[in-house]
């Protein structure tokens, strides 16, 4: 399990069977992480340092060694959560400060596109913070769980769910008719 907190020596990856630190991620702070299905890779969005030039970066890291296998060249927004598409080559991310969805190629981590709900359907002038991202591959739906307020126990208050439709993994070309 990755600990998604701040750690100056690098965020520790815990071997759950022994309770020991197996490796460290090359970031000092991260929130959004997801393991590959085989457990060998962690996709992580985090910062390498706390300096003003240390922007958020998206990278794929070896679970066992902590080595970076792939990294997106540009910085990324503050991402709250990641999910892998089990049926397609995509990695989805949601921003912390609003239900904006970012789509990346999971192999190269190249940014493909971003989109968000139309303003009329979003949560208003104070959009809460997003706390979870989920996928239902059978119906090709992506879900964002958000909260509308911040309380003494962190996120505390009414929540909301944003539903997005995803691309089908296989498309049949359409012959346009005269």
């Amino acid at each position, binding site marked *: 399990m990755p600990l998604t*907190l701040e750690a100056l020596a690098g965020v520790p990856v*815990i071997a759950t069977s022994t309770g020991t630190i197996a490796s460290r991620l090359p970031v000092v702070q991260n929130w959004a992480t997801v393991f590959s299905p085989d457990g060998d890779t962690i996709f992580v969005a985090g910062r390498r340092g706390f300096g003003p030039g240390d922007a958020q970066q998206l990278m794929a890291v070896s679970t066992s060694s902590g080595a970076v296998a792939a990294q997106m060249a540009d910085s990324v927004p503050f991402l709250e959560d990641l999910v892998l598409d*089990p049926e397609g080559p995509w990695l989805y991310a949601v921003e912390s400060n609003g239900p904006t969805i970012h789509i990346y190629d999971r192999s190269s981590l190249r940014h493909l596109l971003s989109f968000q709900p139309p303003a009329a359907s979003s949560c208003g002038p104070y959009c809460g913070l997003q706390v979870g991202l989920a996928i239902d591959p059978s119906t090709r739906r992506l879900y964002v769980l958000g909260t509308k307020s911040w309380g003494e126990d962190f996120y505390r208050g009414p929540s909301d769910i944003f*539903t997005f439709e995803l691309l089908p993994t296989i498309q049949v*070309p359409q012959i346009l008719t*005269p």
Partner: protein
Amino acid sequence: MCALLIGAQACREVPTAGLPENVEVRLLNPAAWPGSDLIIVSSALTGATALPEVMLDTFRLAVARVGDSTVTARLPDSSGTFAIHVRLQGGDRYGSVRIVGFVRHTDAIPLTGWPLSAWPGSPIMMVATESSLVKLDLRSGMATSHWNIPHWGGCSVSPGPSFRQGGVVAQGRSRTAPNSCERALTWLGAVPVDSAPFVAGNRLWAELSPDTWLFAAHHDMWIYRSGQLVASETME
């Protein structure tokens, strides 16, 4: 020239000799992301200097050539199903396009802390309310609390994971001292199956493996195995 057919829902132009009906115009991606490109392929594009006109309902799309027989048309940042009309070399072709993306917004229950997915990426999540854990299904927005697992954000901010399949770690208020906490418990359904090594509360407890517990507080975490401290970390 417009031929109005009896009973027809639309007035379409009669194909001209410029684009015989047996010349295929194919849309390679009839489903697309908002703001992405439609890909249109036809042998009629080969050698043609003029780009086709592509209409999405009544909205004219920007078209670019990307190959001898291929053009792209940039979609708007919208979602839904739309009619597409391609005018090419004096002929017309019709079809439909589905732009995926935003579907709906749903209000859901009040919660505290971060949710715990039933499995990575699962739309079924355990979330904390003011006094218990509930199961929230993001597909329907419905929350169910039939197990009545005690949990209070004043003890642990969030429910914690367990190595046990279907397990969840929750920490409720003391039954005798309202502002104190009980030990964190691992629950399988409605049954508590193990407890944390001591009473303390802050961010979360996680059950890593048999008799191995992780406790996370503000900027620190500790791991206990058989009640003994085996690892610790100061986060900042």
